[in-house]
């Protein structure tokens, strides 16, 4: 029966050859940091025989498997769905969050976007509010805390009106949807020279500010979420637009304007407090 395992093994070797037949050789300059209490540094790794059809994360898988075989700690990075929707993957690649292409996440980036012999610098998102957990993985729980502060509509399960009881103009619904597509990856913070979280927060504030269901808590919500955002230690917005340019879901900075408007309206003209 062992022969079966061997067959599978040899199949694997042939299969390995597929990836061995990749023709790209790269140098990775990777940020390694054992944990948040220890200082990190860049370490260079060769990435050899890389196929242009590999995704960026698959390329890291290949490098990691080689490291494991050598008994070295693999490069830790966050990833999960690998289809650009869960928001778990991050990576600052050659100076840009999610790499050189626009409107995609790192997991959707393929190696054909790089040149043979290129050196690729890979870093974690860098922000006080996103402390490094290990290597390229950072703690983005600040985003969760901001949402918890008020990013919801207070309805209990059951006892809600029929879904069609309130008509919502299509352009408004579409605009709310555009804001709602945020995947919470943190690229906006990573791209911003001030490590500001305004695009993320404003997307959530906007979605609910636009929908009729979000109106009762509209002014309370924006104040609560902004207060939490400030508490987390994000920087402030200088309207550079870098967040919008790097957002994998192309969230617009009009959301930020909308949030500002709501915030000032709340602070100067409304009764509600956070």
């Amino acid at each position, binding site marked *: 029966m062992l022969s079966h395992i061997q067959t599978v093994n040899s199949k694997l070797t042939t299969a390995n050859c597929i990836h061995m037949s990749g023709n790209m050789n790269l140098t990775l300059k990777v940020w390694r940091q054992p944990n948040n209490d220890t200082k990190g540094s860049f370490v260079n790794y060769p990435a050899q025989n890389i196929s242009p059809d590999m995704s960026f994360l698959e390329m890291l898988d290949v490098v990691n498997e080689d490291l494991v075989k050598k008994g070295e700690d693999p490069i830790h990075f966050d990833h999960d769905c690998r289809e650009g929707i869960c928001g778990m993957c991050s990576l600052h690649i050659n100076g840009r969050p999610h790499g050189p292409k626009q409107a995609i996440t790192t997991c959707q980036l393929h190696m054909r976007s790089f040149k043979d012999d290129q050196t690729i610098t890979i870093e974690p998102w860098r922000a006080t509010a996103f402390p490094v957990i290990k290597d390229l993985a950072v703690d983005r729980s600040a985003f969760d805390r901001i949402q918890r502060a008020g990013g*919801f509509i207070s309805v209990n399960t059951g006892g809600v009106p029929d879904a069609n009881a309130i008509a919502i103009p299509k352009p408004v619904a579409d605009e709310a949807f555009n804001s709602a597509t945020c995947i919470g990856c943190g690229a906006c913070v990573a791209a911003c020279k001030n490590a500001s979280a305004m695009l993320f927060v404003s997307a959530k504030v906007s979605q609910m500010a636009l929908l009729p269901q*979000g109106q009762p808590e509209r002014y309370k919500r924006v104040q609560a979420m902004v207060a939490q955002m400030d508490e987390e230690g994000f920087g402030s917005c200088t309207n550079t637009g870098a967040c919008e340019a790097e957002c994998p879901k192309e969230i617009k900075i009009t959301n930020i304007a909308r949030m500002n408007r709501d915030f000032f309206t709340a602070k100067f003209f409304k009764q509600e407090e956070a």
Partner: protein
Amino acid sequence: MKLDAKIPEGPLAEKWSKHKFNLKLVNPANKRKYTVIVVGTGLAGSSAAASLAELGYNVKAFCYQDSPRRAHSIAAQGGINAAKNYRNDGDSVYRLFYDTIKGGDYRAREANVYRLAEVSVNIIDQCVAQGVPFAREYGGLLDNRSFGGAQVSRTFYARGQTGQQLLLGAYSALNRQIHEGKVEMFSRHEMLDVVVVDGQAKGVVVRDMVTGEIETHAGHAVLLCTGGYGNVFYLSTNAMGCNVTAAWRAHKRGAFFGNPCFTQIHPTCIPVTGDHQSKLTLMSESLRNDGRVWVPKTKEIAAQIREGKIKASDIKEEDRDYFLERKYPSFGNLVPRDVASRNAKEMVDEGKGVGSSGVAVYLDFADAIKRLGEDAVRAKYGNLFDMYYQITDENPYKEPMRIYPAVHYTMGGLWVDYNLQTTVPGLYALGEANFSDHGANRLGASALMQGLADGYFVIPYTLGDYLATIGPKAVDASHPAFAETKKAVEERIQKLLSLKGNKTVDEYHRELGKIMWEYCGMARSEEGLKKAKKMIQDLKADFWKNAIVLGKNEEFNQSLEKAGRVADFIELGELMIDDALDRTESCGGHFRIESQTEEGEAKRDDEKYAYVAAWEYKGENQAEALHKEELKFENVKLTQRSYK
């Protein structure tokens, strides 16, 4: 042990309301004395945690991701079914029930499915109230579209991101309860065992994935909302982290596993490009509305394609085989998922596969572009074409897409009764984690419906009954079972960390995936399954000798995480094979070579196999015991499906 599904008596349409009335209630003042543990924060987990906390229970919720919002429910594209009949096109609760039972090839419980259809209408109301931005029409009311396996338009959607929007809705409800202090959230925590005290689930053992600390948490009940196990195939459309560990550990603690071999293989995925491939990407099945599936007529032409000598567009019309249209003239390219998948595999096995790997068939839009114009095709499918281009670097407007089936969903899961309770009292399974309402094949847009139905509208009632029965007395966390279970977890981790062999865990995972795909994938035979069983047993032995697991427990250690999950997948793989061996019939996603009609179509055997196979763990390296829950069909007539 006799399986009791606890299906209420009475006419189908009254079962759930009667049952709700008969269930015991917990006094509002007593609810705060209970703690409920919810593992997993996808649609089922988030909705359950939020709803239970709203009722007044204390909830502890766990997820392995860095945020509850990232659970893989988020990746669902198409939509969610609900029997709203907003179209006035003849939909009803009964019709949704009927379509789902039939779509599942008559291997699901009538009562469960009817309840699912019944509460489906509440789900949409709930989500809209939470601010889920469903697609709307110009009049401001909700839009619908039609989906496979149904003749009515009952699918609600939010562009191609329905799962994301629904999950964010449930996540916001969960957030509100975290804010209120009713839910304590533990992200980056992986459940590694269930604590069973005197036969009842009373807690969990989890690992803090950042510090490595092994923690025990006590509660009056444990809800597993941990999703499916498609990653047993290594390549699937599941997220990289999706795993069976929570369910498998529960199984080892006494929860029966229902229909483990029922796997859904989705026909339209982007094919594998090489062995580096880590996951597969689904393309919405709506593409088959306008795309034509074909392969070259002869092996010789296919070989030329594989060698890159010619392009698809070079192949003459008469040299193409539109095999679905040829074999199923009435349904053509729109045959159900299982049929489409199986036929693609057949073509590839015959050596007519295309692409450099030869493991793909064409999905061609040339005719649609000719008929409708490129702009119309772009308007309909533009985002999918972009996605395809992004991944393959090929322009589907010019050359046909290459597609191949991929593992997508697992209908099997922990066996649960009508109350969603497993065979371990106090231990519940919700969503994809249970063996579910989908029988042997799930219809499109039904997974989201089931996850939310379980979490929002079923468990809040049924759990109360159990909690009222056991009483609000605090769970004794000093019971030796907690320390013993924790110790078992720690020992297993140490055993994994002691593995210093020469093969990476990924290599084992890939091997397992290949065995499962080859022998327990789209077509299964007794001979192949028996062969695979032995291969898996050997693989397991080899894993525990030669795997490499690096680092220590007390750190963020992805090497260790992966090892634990793969070890469980290997064990699950063997059970899947056992289950597939037992079921010598073809039904839904499960196609047994031995059971086919003369034309080579799936042949169901309702005489012998109209049951749920529930497997009981009997100990390390012991054969599992099979228990059968007979399926009674009182409302629908069982018929053989034909798509000719």
